[in-house]
Structures are given as C-alpha cells and as structure tokens.
C-alpha cells in the first residue's frame, strides 16, 4: 500500500507504521444498507448550512475516533474553503470560541451531547441553547444530521476503514469505499 513516505526523498524518509486494511468491506457486503445510508445522508443534510455541518461532522468523528471520517471531512472542509485554524481548534472549541459563531458553538455543543448519549441524555440547557439559534425545522434536521455522521462513524470504526486516501470531489458513491478499484 502506498504511503506518504513515497512522496518524500531518501534523505527525509521516515519509517511509519504499516497501514492496516479494512476489516470488513461493509458497503460491498451490504449494498442495500449502503444505498440506504447514502439516501439518509442526502435527506438529513437538506436545509443545513454546509459549512456548519462540516464542522459538526469533524467534531463527531473526533469524539468517535473515526479516522476515515476525520480524513474525509477535514479534506472536504478545506476544499470548501474552511480556515485551517477553525478545523485545528475544533478539538478544543470550548476554549477557542472566538473562532466560531454563536450558532456554530450551539451546534457543536448539541453534537457532543447527541454523540455521547451513553453518559446520559441531551440536557435541557444544551437543547435550549441550540433552539435559540435554530428554528424548529432546521433543528430537527441538525439532530438527524448529527445522528447520520454518528452512523458513518460506526461503520468506519467497526470496519476499520483506513484513512489517508480520500480525495475531495470524488464521486459520492465511492466516498465510503476506499480500496475499491476506481
């Protein structure tokens, strides 16, 4: 498998750990499931600001430790013109609030609450703050969209999809099937 090593010259060559391939090619093994995910993804993002949703996707993917998803969504954000600092600071957004709008901050806070359900519910405080910045239809979409990136994270982590190969702008149907002949 080709790594970034190949792009450096001999003098600066560094030995990285070997890449591990996917455990499970789930999209090929369950094509109907994959089709439903693509359809769900398209439906859930309707009406959401793409810049805001990209931040939400990166943050959820960080919390869920989905390497493929972080690779994909940081590259997509950069390709869409997002500022590097806003991506870099996402992992500490509570301490770097001045990089984000109040609406984005409310969305990020909601993202964390909806993503970490096992620690208990989505508090009234977090929900109300989001409700101040999003009208009801948009908020319902945001909740669905947070759930959807969580779903992609689950497939990505469980199937152990390798990061590093994603290129923005590729055909949607190939996005989540790295390693597939193209």
């Amino acid at each position, binding site marked *: 498998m080709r790594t970034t090593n190949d792009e450096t010259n001999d003098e600066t060559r560094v030995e990285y750990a070997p890449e591990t391939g996917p455990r499970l090619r789930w999209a090929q093994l369950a094509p109907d499931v994959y089709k439903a995910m693509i359809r769900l993804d398209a439906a859930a993002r309707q009406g959401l600001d793409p810049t805001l949703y990209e931040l939400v996707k990166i943050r959820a993917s960080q919390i869920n430790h989905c390497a493929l998803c972080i690779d994909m969504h940081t590259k997509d954000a950069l390709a869409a013109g997002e500022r590097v600092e806003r991506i870099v600071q996402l992992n500490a957004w509570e301490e770097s609030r001045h990089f984000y709008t109040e609406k984005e901050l409310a969305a990020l806070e909601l993202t964390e609450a909806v993503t970490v359900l*096992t620690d208990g519910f989505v508090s009234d405080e977090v929900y109300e703050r989001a409700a101040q910045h999003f009208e009801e239809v948009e908020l319902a979409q945001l909740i669905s969209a947070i759930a959807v990136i969580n779903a992609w994270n*689950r497939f990505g982590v469980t199937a152990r999809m390798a990061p590093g190969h994603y290129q923005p702008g590729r055909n949607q149907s190939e996005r989540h099937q790295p390693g597939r002949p193209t």
Partner: protein
Amino acid sequence: MTAHVTVRTRLLDQAVGQAMSALSAAAKKGLGDPALAELVMIRASQLNHCAFCLDMHLALARKQGVSEKQLDLLAAWEEAGDVFDERERAALALTEAVTVLTDGFVPDEVYERAAGHFDDVRLAHLVAVITAINNWNRVMVSRRIPPGGYTP
C-alpha cells in the same frame, strides 16, 4: 401524581424517516435473525437510554418470541450464564463496542469473536442493525419522544 414529560419536537423530515426505516429494514433482512436483531436493538437502547426505543423493541421482541428471561437479564448478559448462547453473546459484545465508540474503537477481540459466529455478509448486516438503532436512539432521545407511542 404523574410526571410530565415535555416533547421537544415531533418534527422528523419525512425523507429522513423513510431513509431510516429503509436502513433498518435492509439491515434486519440481511441479518436474517429477527429475534437476535431485537436483542441487539434493546441492548443499544439501554446503553443510549432511549425510552421510546426500549418500549417499542421490548414489544417487538415479545412478538418474536424472545423469552422473558432473556429480556429480564439482557442488561447483565455477561453474568447471565447460559441464558444467552455464544452467538448471542458475541453479537451483544459487538453491540456494546459499536455503541460506546467514545470510549475507544472496537477491539480486535470483540470483532474476531463476532466474526467467529457470523460470516462477512451477516456481520456487515449485524453492524448495520447496531448502527441503525443507534441512529433511532439519537433521533428519539434528542427530541425527547416519550415511550408508549408504538403498538406492534
């Protein structure tokens, strides 16, 4: 005295709802084991504290003939002796790992244990069942949809 639970919003985009149903249906069909699917969905709903989902899937599990003993002991399946067979235990261990990603990954041990009981196609669909119910859990808990709205 009854507690008052306030629904936050009942809004769920129709296309989103339909796609979520299609996802669940494709996942369950490919797994080909409706009773096991219900056990998995109940366990994930327990971990995610989704009252609506628990109410719904406990009803569906009973309809599928899942025993009361299994339903009673599901939250402590690891300590429940032979109430659950090895295949069910492997599926439940995977359910927990895939549901609690924030504590870190899906360990090889858990994954391999599941792979020992499910072929790749069934395993992909089992992961899809776990993912689909996690999706429903998030949508229902966030909107605070109360239990009791579902009749099989």
